[in-house]
């Protein structure tokens, strides 16, 4: 039975850390401390996650019956739209970068803060303003275009608050761009002495690659949404086929951003995964350079595959074949990572604590989602399953089974560092298992539904599909429990959790060399790095003397 090694904290005189050195509200709302901004983001995205989750709950409840028993069609359409908008732009994209990246990127490279602290705070405020616009649109009546806003429905036909949501997303996009700029510049210029590029933790490589995609892709979303807004308000005719405009132009522009966006969403999860696997097998990654470069390869290739979302939209078959081949290629770096993570366990010292449960679940579920992605890249199969529940299952396997599990794993892993407290391990493990079971029960039936032919965004459906829909909704109820539990026990740990010292996991990495929680300026002295990362074989023997078993 594994136990959390308990490193006794120093006697309880009040040590000043980033949390307790100033309790005034203004010191939080005007902070330049990247750690406090990370906490602000964590609170905001958690709230948005549950708003999006309520929409998902209503969707799955509605789908218990083939008829409209709970919601009118208009309301149902608004539910899946707001679920997508919130989850993509207000939860998944900011989750790991703006919470864990903000908190740990500077510490991991041995810096005192990000390069542009005030820009970081501005990023949070822009996120909040964007969220306010989006929630206002929801309160005023919602949007019913789907999160993809396809024209001409969104530009000429829908009579919902499209422009308001588009403005909200537009503003949130600038939040993303600012964070990404900050991370890129910080990684280049603020590494401590001895921290060469190949001594960086893989988390930093992953966040860096994500930031590259963010700064290149998000401006395109901004222009696409601006054109959509202009078209909707003033009918300039660019997407309107009745005056000769081209609705598919919108799709090209939208997916040119949105495909890299899905890599913005998953790369940080992969970044966390590298940290979790190495720490909980106490081993260096199997192929550090391969994992690092595959992040960059994914970032570059992600820009070349957008039209695989449009295979049935009327492209020429040569274009279809080109994008199909490129989409196959982009799967290769992800496969390399999965194999490398699995091989990292080899000859390691594997401990199945809560973060590791999330990490191992990630490998399995991400692999399943990724392989169905290869099926979708296969043209003839995509013709059949495009715009069905197969697609929904595919991206939920990656986003929820992959990314959300990685985010939760990261939160659990770094929770003691961020808060100085340890959560209850038993509840942690239980929640991870509930989430894994609930997730599979929710989304695996959706693969079957999709192949059967149930289209997505369907409120009514043929009665023969009801069996799988009920199964999926049952799974969703379990998944919901799994998500609520961490909220409870993590919050409780703030009051009742055991206090921990600097390195409760015996992990490598600069963040574990400073106190838990870290002081306001991260380090008493700027560290100097002298060896490669993940050198467990070097560092573990030194930690032997400091611990006692419980």
């Amino acid at each position, binding site marked *: 039975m594994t136990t959390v090694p308990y490193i006794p904290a120093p006697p309880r005189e009040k040590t000043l850390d980033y949390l307790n050195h100033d309790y005034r509200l203004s010191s939080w709302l005007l902070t330049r401390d990247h750690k406090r901004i990370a906490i602000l983001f964590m609170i905001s995205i958690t709230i948005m996650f549950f708003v999006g989750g309520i929409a998902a709950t209503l969707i799955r409840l509605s789908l218990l019956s083939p008829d409209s028993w709970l919601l009118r069609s208009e309301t149902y359409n608004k539910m899946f739209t707001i679920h997508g908008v919130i989850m993509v732009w207000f939860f998944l994209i900011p989750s790991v970068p703006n919470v864990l990246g903000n908190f740990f990127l500077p510490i991991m490279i041995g810096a005192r803060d990000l390069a542009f602290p005030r820009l970081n705070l501005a990023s949070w405020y822009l996120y909040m303003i964007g969220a306010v616009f989006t929630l206002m649109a929801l309160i005023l009546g919602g949007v019913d275009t789907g999160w993809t806003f396809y024209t001409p429905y969104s530009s000429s036909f829908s009579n919902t608050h499209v422009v308001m949501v588009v403005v909200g997303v537009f503003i949130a996009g600038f939040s993303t761009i600012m964070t990404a700029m900050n991370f890129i510049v910080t990684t280049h210029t603020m590494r401590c002495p001895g921290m060469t590029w190949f001594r960086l933790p893989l988390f930093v490589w992953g966040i860096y690659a994500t930031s590259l995609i963010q700064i290149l*892709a998000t401006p395109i979303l901004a222009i696409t949404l601006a054109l959509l807004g202009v078209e909707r308000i003033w009918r300039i005719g660019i997407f309107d086929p009745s005056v000769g405009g081209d609705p598919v132009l919108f799709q090209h522009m939208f997916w040119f951003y949105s495909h890299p966006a899905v890599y913005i969403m998953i790369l940080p999860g992969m970044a966390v995964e590298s940290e979790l696997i190495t720490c909980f097998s106490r081993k260096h990654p199997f192929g550090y350079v391969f994992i690092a470069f595959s992040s960059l390869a994914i970032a570059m290739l992600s820009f070349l595959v957008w039209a695989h979302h449009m295979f049935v939209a009327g492209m020429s078959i040569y274009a279809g074949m080109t994008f199909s081949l490129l989409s196959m290629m982009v799967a290769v770096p992800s496969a390399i990572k999965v194999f490398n993570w699995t091989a990292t366990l080899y000859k390691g010292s594997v401990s199945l604590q809560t973060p590791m449960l999330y990490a191992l679940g990630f490998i399995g579920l991400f692999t399943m989602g990724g392989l169905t992605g290869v099926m979708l890249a296969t043209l003839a199969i995509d013709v059949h399953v495009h715009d069905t529940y197969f697609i929904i299952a595919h991206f939920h396997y990656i986003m929820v089974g992959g990314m959300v599990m990685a985010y939760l794993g990261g939160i659990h892993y770094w929770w003691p560092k961020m808060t100085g407290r340890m959560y209850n391990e038993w509840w942690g493990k239980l929640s991870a298992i509930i989430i894994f079971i609930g997730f599979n029960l929710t989304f695996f039936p959706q693969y079957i539904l999709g192949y059967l032919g149930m289209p997505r965004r369907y409120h009514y459906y043929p009665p023969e599909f009801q069996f799988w829909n009920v199964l999926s909704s049952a799974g969703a109820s379990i998944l919901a429990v799994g998500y609520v539990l961490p909220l409870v026990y993590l919050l409780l740990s703030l009051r009742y959790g055991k206090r921990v010292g600097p390195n409760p996991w015996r992990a490598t990495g600069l963040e574990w060399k400073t106190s838990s929680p870290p002081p306001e300026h991260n380090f008493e002295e700027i560290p100097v790095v002298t060896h490669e990362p993940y050198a467990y074989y070097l560092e573990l023997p030194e930690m032997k003397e400091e611990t006692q078993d419980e």
Partner: protein
Amino acid sequence: MSRPTYLQEQFEDMHQQTFTATLGMWAFLTTEVLFFGAIFVAYAVCRLRWQEEFRHGSADLQLWIGAINTAVLLTSSLFIALAVRSAKAGHRSMLVVNLIITLIFGLMFLGFKGYEYSVESDESLVPILNWSTIPPDEVGLPPSQQHPRPEQQKLFMSFYFFMTALHATHMIVGIGVISVLTTLSWRGRYTAEHHNPIEIGALYWHFVDIVWVFLFPALYLLRTG
């Protein structure tokens, strides 16, 4: 060694600060390239689809105002480059003068742009506000002598206003930035050792200029003879 007041606390030394700030500005300009690039691509796609109508739209723009504005903007870039040179040499008064001249040329650009918009309004070329299919000077003529504007010329004008307004917004922000730099320079904040903000501000200004250098041919020069 004591830290200068303009050295921010997250940096170890001035060298790190200047390098970081410059890299930050380049990263920001990269996002701007993608931002303008997206609208240029949308414009190019529509131009390829409606070549005749867009050529017509180009022909109806005020080429001479556009040309003057190009010269104005290039000159303003010259003067901000001179300002950077003055800053490197530590000549405070020349720095301020060069920055002020840059500002003047920037404001001239905006002035000419506003005048140009008013001319376009007079010719009923503004979509949404006062677009007219029949040119105003042909309104009274019998239909056989009228040359109605093609429908997609309206789309061209929408692109024209969107792109130039986007550019003008960036100009206004640039003028704000240069004004702040001018004020701080006048107060003696920048020396030969510390003048990185001037360089970064100049980078931004040059970028806005380069966007115009692409806008001008794309909008004004591809016209019927």
